[in-house]
């Protein structure tokens, strides 16, 4: 084994990719050759330096990715009726992946980017004799999701031996479509943006409304969601829609609140970027305060840069 071949093998040796006998020969060579031993040390130093650059994605990023994925999976799975069937859970499904809908919970309500708004209305209608008329399989169309509430032996008057009684809960969907500049549609989307049980619907609604932020009610809604929404993804989405208005005093006031109070660094980063996009002498004291209390390096440095751009001192004296 000569120095040239050892040099080529050092990276493989370091990563434990050499067969044992070749590793033995290389180690024997390193024991007797100072130049190759330095090569090996250099490889170790490179590796140690690279180890320090290893990054662990933030837990919040992973959580957002999971949410986005499940929403996308639902969108793919729900709308295509490829042969309706009963799932083992007793739910009428348009195709096999719609069997996932019950567990998808918050993402169940479809709300697409094409301003197609679908709202679900729960009929909660029980199929008791006389109340709903004769049961017909043909009535189970894909826009009605039926869940079996109970299955019991029939016990009403006149029931035959062996007859069963099946109680269904039905959720009937109603689809309303129109353009966002239609005031009725806009009103529904504004309401959906407040749906406290469904962050997915709020996110989608805010995303749609961002393209109409020139409307005063929409801008008010975006400010409200930025300041109040419990979901950081929705807050970030609302902030996106306000970027064209970062010179507006009301918007700046909310951005300042967010910068001081928001628990999520990603939102504070977006807020500081938006706030410092405009030089504003009235913000000096506020930015100095952020520098003192902020623990995120990027946010702190953006504030420092903004203060220096305004020839203001960084600290308070």
């Amino acid at each position: 084994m000569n120095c040239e071949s050892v040099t080529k093998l050092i990276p493989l040796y370091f990563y434990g990719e050499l067969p044992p006998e070749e590793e033995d020969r290389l180690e024997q060579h390193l024991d007797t050759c100072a130049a190759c031993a330095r090569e090996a040390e250099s490889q170790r130093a490179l590796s140690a330096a690279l180890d320090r650059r290893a990054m662990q994605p933030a837990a919040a990023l992973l959580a957002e990715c999971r949410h986005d994925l499940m929403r996308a999976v639902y969108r793919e799975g729900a709308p295509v009726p490829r042969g309706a069937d009963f799932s083992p859970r007793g739910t009428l499904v348009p195709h096999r992946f719609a069997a996932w809908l019950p567990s998808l919970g918050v993402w169940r309500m479809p709300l697409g980017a094409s301003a197609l708004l679908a709202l679900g209305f729960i009929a909660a209608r029980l199929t008791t004799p006389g109340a709903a008329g004769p049961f017909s399989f043909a009535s189970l169309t894909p826009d009605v999701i039926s869940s079996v509430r109970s299955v019991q032996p029939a016990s009403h008057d006149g029931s035959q031996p062996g007859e069963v009684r099946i109680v269904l809960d039905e959720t009937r969907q109603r689809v309303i479509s129109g353009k966002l500049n239609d005031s009725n549609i806009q009103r529904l989307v504004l309401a959906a943006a407040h749906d406290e049980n469904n962050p997915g619907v709020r996110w989608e609604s805010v995303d749609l409304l961002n393209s109409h932020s020139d409307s005063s009610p929409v801008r008010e809604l975006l400010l409200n969601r930025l300041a109040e929404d419990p979901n950081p993804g929705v807050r970030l989405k609302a902030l996106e829609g306000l970027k064209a208005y970062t010179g507006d005093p009301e918007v700046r006031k909310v951005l300042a609140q967010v910068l001081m109070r928001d628990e999520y660094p990603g939102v504070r980063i977006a807020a500081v970027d938006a706030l410092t996009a405009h030089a504003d002498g009235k913000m000096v004291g506020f930015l100095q305060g952020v520098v003192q209390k902020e623990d995120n390096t990027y946010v702190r440095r953006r504030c420092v840069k903004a203060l220096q751009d305004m020839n203001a001192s960084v600290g308070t004296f």
Partner: protein
Amino acid sequence: MAQDAPAAVGARLSPKLDEASLIRAVQRGDQDAFEQLVRAYDQSVLRLAVNLLRSQEDARDVFQEAFLRVFRSIDSFRFDCSFHTWLYRIVTNICLDYLRKRKVRKEEPAVVDTPEGPLDRMNDFEEEAAHADPERAMRNVQLGQRIEGALGGLTPRERMVFELRHYQGLRLRNIGEILGTSEEAAKNCLFRATQKMRAVLGDFQ
């Protein structure tokens, strides 16, 4: 060196279901099984994308695209390789596309100028960085820039092999299988990558 070998990933699966049973359940349309399968691998997939692409937005897109492809094509998985290898073929193909696109269009740099010197926005990932002392932080930033420069000098394929071996801890045989090449070709790729890195970073100790 970060290690995230398939066995370690597999250990995150519930002991109730082995991976093959889980995959078969997904193929039957079982949502819980799909979520369990995603959660067994999603941290390592996201870390790979973040480390390779140095961009939260791109990493998020890769994550979504990769698992959606799994979702759409799980029926075509025939158990003729491990699920880990199959998934990583999908992920690495998407990442390689991103890296190749970057070769032809100049990306916005991850490092931005601030009054206190250059700042790597990706440091937000590292909790330690936010609390480091200023001198150490500055040294880390300078080293980070040099490493970024060195990594930027690798071809997308060299970058991928290096990432999978050094940060994900995969064996070269497995890397070759994922990338549709031989173990020998993966070895050569790793050698070229380390030589290039040392040519740029060689005087750093």
